[in-house]
């Protein structure tokens, strides 16, 4: 029972940095199975660096990242790859392999890690593309489809192997409000039907409140996490002005352009 209750991801005393430069320190949080967990904070606070450390692209300076109790960075290469096979990652710009068609992009993980025949792979690819609403676009190249479609194609690739953890890096960036909303709905549906644990790195308030079950707030000035909890509860209960300012879009701030008017006066 204890094993079943264990969080899927645990971050313990994590310090992140580049050489002498410390990006974040003393990060401690955990993500429960089936939760949608938000990593939020202002631009440049270290969200993406944290994500890189979670998905195995950047070793931390100190601390541990545990997946179902196994410390990722203490594993050898084979052990790390085994854990990484549980991930699906949707990158900020989609990161679809440009020389492959959408279909080939989604098929590649299946070709690498399953023993399915090419016909069976084709069927699975078709299913995944249908799930993200891209059935019929399989033969297009990434450069030939819109930004929103690229994101969805990337999501189809991320879920190709039915991962139990899916990471999203700024999923709404570059999307119009309608497509951003559609992607949020897709994320919720995905969680509901697959039971996957989802980690989203974002600063889009609409998405944060729409999908987040739990969250951590990274602060750029103190270089650590300063709040954790359900986003709506944080907005209602947090006493920290930095958290409130972020979650209310810095409500008191005014736009300089509106005050200034035109710059040329004859």
């Amino acid at each position, binding site marked *: 029972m204890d094993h079943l209750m264990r969080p899927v991801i645990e971050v313990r005393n994590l310090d992140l940095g580049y050489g*002498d*430069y410390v990006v974040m320190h003393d990060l401690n949080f955990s993500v429960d199975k089936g939760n949608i967990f938000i990593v939020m904070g202002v631009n440049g606070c270290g969200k993406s660096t944290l994500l890189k450390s979670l998905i195995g*692209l950047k070793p931390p300076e100190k601390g541990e990242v545990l997946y179902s109790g196994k410390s990722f960075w203490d594993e050898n290469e084979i052990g790390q790859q085994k854990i*990484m096979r549980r991930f699906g*990652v949707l*990158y900020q710009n989609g990161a*679809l*392999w440009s020389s492959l068609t959408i279909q080939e992009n989604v098929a590649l993980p299946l070709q*690498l890690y399953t023993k399915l025949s090419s016909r069976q792979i084709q069927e699975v690819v078709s299913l995944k593309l249908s799930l993200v609403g891209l059935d019929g676009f399989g033969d297009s190249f990434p450069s030939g489809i819109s930004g929103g479609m690229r994101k969805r194609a990337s999501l189809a690739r991320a879920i190709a192997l039915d991962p139990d953890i899916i990471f999203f890096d700024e999923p709404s960036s570059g999307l119009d409000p309608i497509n951003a909303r559609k992607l949020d709905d897709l994320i919720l549906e995905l969680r509901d039907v697959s039971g996957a644990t989802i980690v989203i790195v974002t600063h889009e308030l609409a998405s944060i409140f729409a999908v987040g079950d739990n969250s951590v707030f990274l602060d750029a000035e103190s270089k650590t996490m300063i709040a954790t909890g359900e986003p709506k509860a944080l907005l209602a209960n947090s006493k920290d002005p930095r958290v409130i300012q972020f979650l209310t879009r810095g409500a008191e701030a005014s736009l300089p352009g509106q005050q*200034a008017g035109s710059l040329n006066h004859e």
Partner: protein
Amino acid sequence: MLPEKISFDYSIPKTLLIKLNGDWRISAGFLSESTVTSELASHPDIRQINLIASQDLRWDSGLISFLLKLVRECVQKDIQVVRQELPQEAQKLLALALKVDKKSISSGVAAIVEAKKNSRLLSHPNNPDPVVSESFLERFGQKALEITESLRLEIDFLGDLAVCFGRLIRGKSYFRWDDFLLIVKRCGVDTLLLVSLISLLVGMILAFVGSIQLKMFGAQIFIAYIVGIAMVRVLSAVMTGIIMSGRIGASFAAELGMMQTNEEIDALKTLGVSPVEFLVVPRVLAVVIMMPILTIYADLMGVLGGFLISVGMLHLNPVEYLNLTQKAVKLNYVWVGLIHGFVFGVIVAVAGCLRGMQCERNAAGVGVATTSAVVTGITGIVVATAIITFICQVLGV
């Protein structure tokens, strides 16, 4: 210029009235704030400045920039600046600039300084005071460390490549034939026209230059020797290598650099696929296979170039020319040329892929990677030519 734009009035005690006239737009040029500060220096009793705009004042950021510097100066000297008689928009802009200024000093910059201080404290708990300026030795040491790190990464890359080729030979690697054939086409068919043109011209140039000297001895027919030996042993491979470096090496660096920028390489890593195995191996293999083939083709084109000049312009006997070429070019020379081609292929492909994989994640980084790939490729070709020539000399080939 001074009377047109600014005038001073001391009629009110302890107050300086500054009247702003004429064109204060950026296009009209800036007036230094020292014009005013020198006035203040000569009247130390001034405690207030009243700014007054005349009817004909035309302004944009040029005026605000001047006023901002002036206000900052006055704040330091504890002089009050009255701005009510400036145009309303100018007042607002100035207030905004001062607000941002104040904010950035009080919170933004201070926060960054504090954050940097914290990060340094965290990194060096016993040494919170960072070194401000670096001495020559420190810079030298820093550079040496950078070079060592860069060498380590290059050796790491070559090691990875060797491991991936080992896996390919054992049939354990994921190899996309479609990608490989596409790269072969790019290296071969798409480069053929350029290789033809350059090799033909080099053969012609050699024939021309050789004929000038040989004519003096009446031995023009020996042009066949010069063209044949030079092209087959070295020149075809060198010219093909340089073409490939500029065309293929640069394109590899740009492609992989863009993939690095677009996180496509990260996506491969998180999928557990080695980017070297997936992206670099097919490229290196394609170039290494195509380079010797292109070198042989360039040999033929070079000899053809020499033949055309010798027969067409120098009126030598074509049969005799071809016979002498056949006599001059020994099989060993062809092998030497092929080895050159093979080595240059490795250099060009590895340089292009390495620079692409090392590319920084921005547009400028892609430019730097491309340039660096070509420079590394060509330098490598010249160095390798020297080494191979020396070895051949020692071996008597």
